[in-house]
């Protein structure tokens, strides 16, 4: 899923300066699972904003709502009336949701309430970690199911650098060395000889480096 984290209240307050009526809009998919922008978080942020504005003597009316996915036209279309009644939308979706709302509702400012961090997993309750860097050309079959692009701090494709120590990355003892993980997994699978091959330079055209990406599926297109 896409993992995000809510921005500090002070930053959100700064963004909302001058607006009188704001729609705080949650998203019930990824950011709800990672507890950053679902129904509960909308309710919490709504209350925090009401309390803060009352304390500071601002006039701020908060409208709360959430949709299934802000990245899908069918779910954001029905918001038309609500959006038109507000000065701004404070989206609690990932960066895609914020942008898709802004594309649909061109006359209303759409502001981000969360930072979109990475594509990751729930390691345990309250702990999310990155797994995929969306390079668009998966190499997991070569590296024991552990991604060297996302898990190695330097995205190395041919083994660990000289900074791997006791299974940890040189940048932070809290970060596992991606290549130690790959090595251990390949050893377990009896596939270590595969790591002896030199992986050639990666074609980054499928990654962000190739410009904004697009997929068109003629078989499902309407």
């Amino acid at each position, binding site marked *: 899923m896409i993992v995000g984290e809510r921005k500090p209240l002070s930053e959100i307050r700064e963004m909302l300066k001058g607006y009188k009526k704001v729609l705080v809009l949650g998203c019930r998919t990824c950011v709800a699972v990672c507890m950053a922008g679902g129904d509960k978080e909308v309710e919490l942020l709504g209350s925090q904003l009401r309390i803060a504005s009352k304390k500071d003597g601002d006039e701020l009316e908060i409208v709360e709502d959430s949709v299934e996915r802000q990245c899908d036209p069918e779910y954001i279309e029905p918001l038309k009336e609500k959006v038109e009644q507000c000065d701004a939308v404070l989206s609690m979706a990932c960066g895609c949701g914020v942008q898709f709302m802004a594309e649909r509702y061109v006359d209303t400012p759409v502001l981000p309430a969360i930072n979109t961090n990475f594509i990751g997993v729930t390691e345990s309750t309250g702990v999310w970690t990155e797994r995929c860097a969306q390079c668009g050309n998966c190499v997991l079959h070569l590296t024991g199911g552990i991604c060297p692009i996302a898990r190695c701090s330097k995205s190395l494709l041919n*083994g660990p650098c*000289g900074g791997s120590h006791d299974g940890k990355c040189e940048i932070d003892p809290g970060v596992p060395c991606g290549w130690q993980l790959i090595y251990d997994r390949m050893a377990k699978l009896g596939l270590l000889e595969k790591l002896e091959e030199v992986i050639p330079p990666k074609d980054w055209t499928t990654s962000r480096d190739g410009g904004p990406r697009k997929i068109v599926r003629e078989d499902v297109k309407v």
Partner: protein
Amino acid sequence: MKAGSNLERVLTEGNFAVTAELGPPKSADVETVHKKADILKGKVDAVNITDNQTAIVRMSSIGAAKLVLDKGLEPVVQMVCRDRNRIAMQSDILGAYALGLKNLLCLTGDHQKFGNHPTAKNVFDLDSLQLLQMFKRMRDDKVFQCGEEVRNSKKAPIVEPRLFLGAAENPFAHPYEFRAIRLKKKVNAGADFIQTQLIFDVPRFKEWMKEVVGMGLHEKVFILAGVMPIKSPRVIEYMKANVAGLSIPDALIQRMKGASDPKEEGVTFVVEMINEVRQIEGVRGVHIMAVEWEEIVPTIVERAGLLPRP
């Protein structure tokens, strides 16, 4: 001879090679580079010019290398994958070769987190192996990484950069089991010589060299053992606490702390180390990394009995 550099000649003729390290200044100060080059000239076979080491902005490796070359000392340009993509790297190497530089050491590079611009974006378009492979192809196959020939037009002559290519290897980083394999990969990718990470832990270095010799790699690549004179107990304590990828025995720290003249002890230690690694099968030279203490290198080389240079 692949590149015809002095370092290549010294090694190919079977001599025990000596290289040192010269850190460019954190400014455009030419004098500092000239001064360091004057100290090292005639005392080493070539000198490595670091590339923004520990991710701190310094005079470029190629620029400083040209200043060193003009002083009559042969440089080894270092290049890391952190700051440049394949386009910039190949372009820089065409320029470096055009300036008369003939040795290149391909490195991954320290993460920018450690330097003075931790908010920078890193590149890592290639890793150090792919970098080696790219320059080997430019030299031997006369093609760029994209496959195009190294010539200005169809009618123009091919002028490829002929570099003596090096890589580093760290026998002290983990997983230990992969370190000799990684060396093998670097040899297969095109390494002509290897300069190792600093050796303080001789038993582990011997264990790694045994594996390397077992694989027959010492016959395919020239291995230079990395050594360092320790200037003070504070330096070695700092390194143990802060520098990734080193194995520093506590006994060494105690030895430096107990010394009445730490600088003298540091020199004695490194001379002992050179004499010890020289005995190990497969070691073809030493790489003396006297970080910000270049002036001590001539003393070390002399006391290790490695003068005059061939």
